[in-house]
């Protein structure tokens, strides 16, 4: 049970993130929801990479034990970096939209439709 805690958290955060994305009408809140969902994915990647009793693959003064390939950690770092870039760009878009439309409400940002 306690070993599954990270995965349960992942499920919980995923639901919170997706619910925020579809239910909130404020663009900033939608982006927050997107970031929450992204946090869930990152937590998922980290938790699948955990091995009981494994040690980091640093060969200098290494203690005896099973070394773990740090691929999931590398994936998570990459994903965080991409997430920062995406969020920065989306927030820039929201700023420009606010300047031109005077609102961040998705119901009123629908010049392009039909």
């Amino acid at each position, binding site marked *: 049970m306690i070993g599954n805690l990270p995965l349960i958290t992942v499920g919980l955060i995923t639901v919170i993130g997706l619910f925020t994305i579809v239910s909130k009408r404020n663009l900033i809140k939608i982006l927050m929801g997107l970031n929450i969902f*992204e946090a869930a994915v990152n937590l998922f990647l980290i938790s*699948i990479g955990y091995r009981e009793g494994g040690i980091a693959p640093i060969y200098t003064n290494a203690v005896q034990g099973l070394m773990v*390939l740090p691929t*999931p950690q590398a994936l998570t770092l990459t994903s965080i970096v991409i997430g920062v870039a995406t969020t920065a760009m989306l927030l820039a*878009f929201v700023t*420009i939209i606010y300047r*031109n439309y005077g609102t961040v409400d998705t119901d009123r940002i629908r010049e392009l439709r039909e």
Partner: protein
Amino acid sequence: MSWELLRLHAPALLIAVPLVASFAMPILGRTKLSRGIIALGAMALTSCIAIFLSYTVYTSGVLLYVFGAESPALSIPPDSGGIPIRIIFTIDALSAFMTLIVAIVGFSVFLYSMSSDQRHTGLEGYYTLFLMMIAGILGMVNTGDLFNFFVFLEISSLAGAGLVAFRIEKGKAVEGALKFAVLSTMGALLLLFAVGIFYWQYDALNIAAIASRMQFSLLDQIALVMLVAALAMKCGSVPLHFWTPDAYSMAPSSVTAMLVVSSQASLYGLFRVIFTLYGIKLDWVTVGWIVIALGMLSMFVGVTMAIPQKDVKRLMAYHAISQTGYMLLGVGVGIAVLGDPASLQSYGMAAIDGGLFHIFNHAMYKGLLFLTAGAIIYVTGTRDMNAMGGLGHRMKYTMIFFMIGALAIAGIPPFNGFASKLVIYESVYRFSPVLAIIAMLVSILTLASFVKVFHSVFMGPELPEYDTGREVPLPMLLGMGLLAGIVIVIGIFPAPFIDHLVAPAAQALVNQAGYISAVAGGG
């Protein structure tokens, strides 16, 4: 010696050249001349490498490139326990086919962009993003690693969104870009989730390595659902298409032509996942019918939504959705008979051939049509078809190019759209006649809607407001002419094209064992 070295490292150069040029652009591209030389030069070089690479793959089989290894062919290091841990580019005939599309459309678009975009400021940033997008698309179609696919997908979507928003247009372009970027990020995150699921089960990220261990457990099925939904959204199939007209219509026209190719790279990803990652192990009838259903919906809803449009680029964007439906239909029929060797041989392969052939043809004529739309907007300064008319008097070449593109998209012989649609109709008819008949109906509606565009834009008396309008500059005509020439040549010689380029690609798509052994046997 250096020639050999070039041949060996061509896959890395394919990504490196546009990326390096992209990052050099903000520093070196301050003047018009240097910007043009760097952008066009880098794109020409990339296209040359891409064509060279495709030629190599078509003549001598699957090409492996292992980043960071002692030799580019050493895919599985001896101490890794049989898992390819490095990032590997696995370039088979299908990847080469897609690379060829990017090379041709990319070069035409850059040529066109040399004069179409010069009236705007901030162009060094524009070309930075543009080259980055090219690198992202090339990476997507050539990589053999799922996480790497995610990274390149994000690169191409972020650069694409930045380009869509480039001309703010009172916030409307940014609105389209925001919708595109939020949905792309959502799709990419789901893709990452699926990658995590695979790593959890198989300790691998390489497509071939995962494919060889594939169990098709419950988790794999959930991952498949996420991948199919995310990639179907990225390629713009109905009912996940809502971002497509918004982003396509607001982007600068040269970018729109490239966004079409980027969507098709996602389509490639979808087919790669279904055929190579899962292959025969998945429930082929269900998945095939889901892809067919998405395809039929895209075809019909796309074309019917296009007919009442007033914005010329929005209309063409809906046609892009509709044409994506043909590709999904063709390949979907191939998936639906994947586990049935008799049907696969008798019409399944032909359907896949038709679908892939249509990807190539679509990239050419849709790119051409978006470029002509850009030329029309360049002259008139408006997107609204109600404000246009009589342009055929002054823009004869653009009109001819538009006619070529419009007849090709409607499947009128002797242009290339006819050849691929013929293959799709005949093979789909043997699978299910109703689907083929609906496909033909959609083709008629496509023609009807392009007649509307042709009439309202080019026909009629010269309107007083465009009396000063002239034909667009030569580089734009050259870019359009290159694509138009390819449309005609393929329309006249479809058989050699299918035999030498499309059929090997379709074989590579279906041949999962060959893909796996190319990576596993490379040690």
